[in-house]
C-alpha cells in the first residue's frame, strides 16, 4: 500500500484517503483544525506540511468534506478578513472535539491491532526461515 516513504499517497487510489472511506479524511480535517481555526487553502497546506507531503490530497474533496462536517455540527465557519482577503474560516465545535477524541482512540486501537498482527507475522516468518 505505501510502497516507499517518498511515494505520495493519492486519495483517489488509496484506501487511507479513498472517497469510499470519507471518515479518514474527516479525521485528518478535524485533527488539523484542532490546532487552530483555518480557511480551506490553509487547511490543505497544513495537511501537506504535517504529513511531510505524504498525503497528496484531491483538493476538490476537501471543501465538500468541510461542509459535511459543518452540517453535522462538528465544525463551524465564519466569513472574515484574513491577510487582506475575505475567507471562510473553519473551527472545531465542542461536539467536533469530542468526535476527534473518540476517532483518535479508535484510530489508535486500529493501529495497535494492525501492528500486533504485522509483528506476529514478521516473527513467524523469521522463525520459519
Amino acid at each position: 500500500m505505501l510502497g516507499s516513504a517518498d511515494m505520495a499517497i493519492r486519495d483517489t487510489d488509496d484506501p487511507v484517503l479513498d472517497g469510499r472511506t470519507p471518515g479518514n479524511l474527516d479525521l485528518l480535517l478535524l485533527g488539523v483544525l484542532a490546532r487552530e481555526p483555518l480557511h480551506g487553502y490553509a487547511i490543505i497546506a497544513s495537511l501537506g506540511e504535517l504529513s511531510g507531503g505524504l498525503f497528496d490530497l484531491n483538493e476538490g474533496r476537501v471543501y465538500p468534506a468541510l461542509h459535511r462536517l459543518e452540517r453535522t455540527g462538528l465544525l463551524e465557519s465564519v466569513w472574515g478578513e484574513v491577510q487582506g482577503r475575505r475567507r471562510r474560516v473553519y473551527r472545531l465545535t465542542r461536539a467536533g472535539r469530542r468526535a476527534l477524541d473518540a476517532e483518535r482512540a479508535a484510530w489508535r486501537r486500529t493501529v495497535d491491532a494492525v501492528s500486533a498482527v504485522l509483528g506476529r507475522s514478521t516473527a513467524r516468518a523469521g522463525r520459519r526461515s
Partner: protein
Amino acid sequence: VTTAPATVGEWLARFDAALIVAPAARRALCDELAAHFADALADDVTEATATSAVGAPEQVAEACSREANLAALQRGVWLLIAGVLALGAAWYVGILVYPLGQWVKPPAVLYAPHHLGLGAWAATGVLGGGTLLALRSPRLLRRHDGLALAAAIALVAMLVLHVVAGNLYVWLRNGIVPGSPAPEAQLALSAAHLAIAAVVAAPLATAAGRLRRVAGLCRSS
C-alpha cells in the same frame, strides 16, 4: 466533462454553471473557491496546477451542491415543523375566538364533519411533523427519502384540503345556522383564512421542493 480546465476563470465559470443551490449558497461557494485559487496563485502555483489539484469543477460542484442542499433541507424541516405548529396554534386561537361569535350551538348534525375534519388535519400534522423530525438525520433520509417526500406532499395536500373543504363547509353551514356571520363578514374571514394558509403553505412547499431535489441527489450519488 471530467477534466479540469487550464485557467482559474474557466474553472470558476464551469463550477458556477454546475451548481444546483440557492443563490446565497452559490455566492458563498463561488467566493470560497475563488479565495482558494487566489491563495494558490499567491503561493506561485500556476493556474493549470491549481485547477488540476482541485479536479473537475462539475464533480466538485455536485458534491458541494449535495452538502448545501442537505444543510438547507435540515433548516427547511424546521421551517416545516414551525409551520405545522403555527397552524395548530392558529386553530386553538380560532377555538377560543369561536364562542365570541353567535354560532356556539349549531345543529348537532354539523358537529361530525367539523370534528372529523379537525381530527384528520391534526393527525396528519402530528404524523407528518413526527416523520420529518425523525428524518432530520441525513443517514435516515438517504434510506427513506421517499417517505420524507411523501410526508411533505401529504402535509401540503392536507393543508389545501383543509382550507378548501373548511371554507366550503363554513359557507354551507352559514346557510343553516341562524345568527351566522353576514356574507361580507364571512368573506373577510375566508380571505384571512386563505392568507394564513398561504403563509403556512410557503415553507411547506419549499421544504417539499427541497426534499424532492435532495432525494434526487441522494439517488444519483
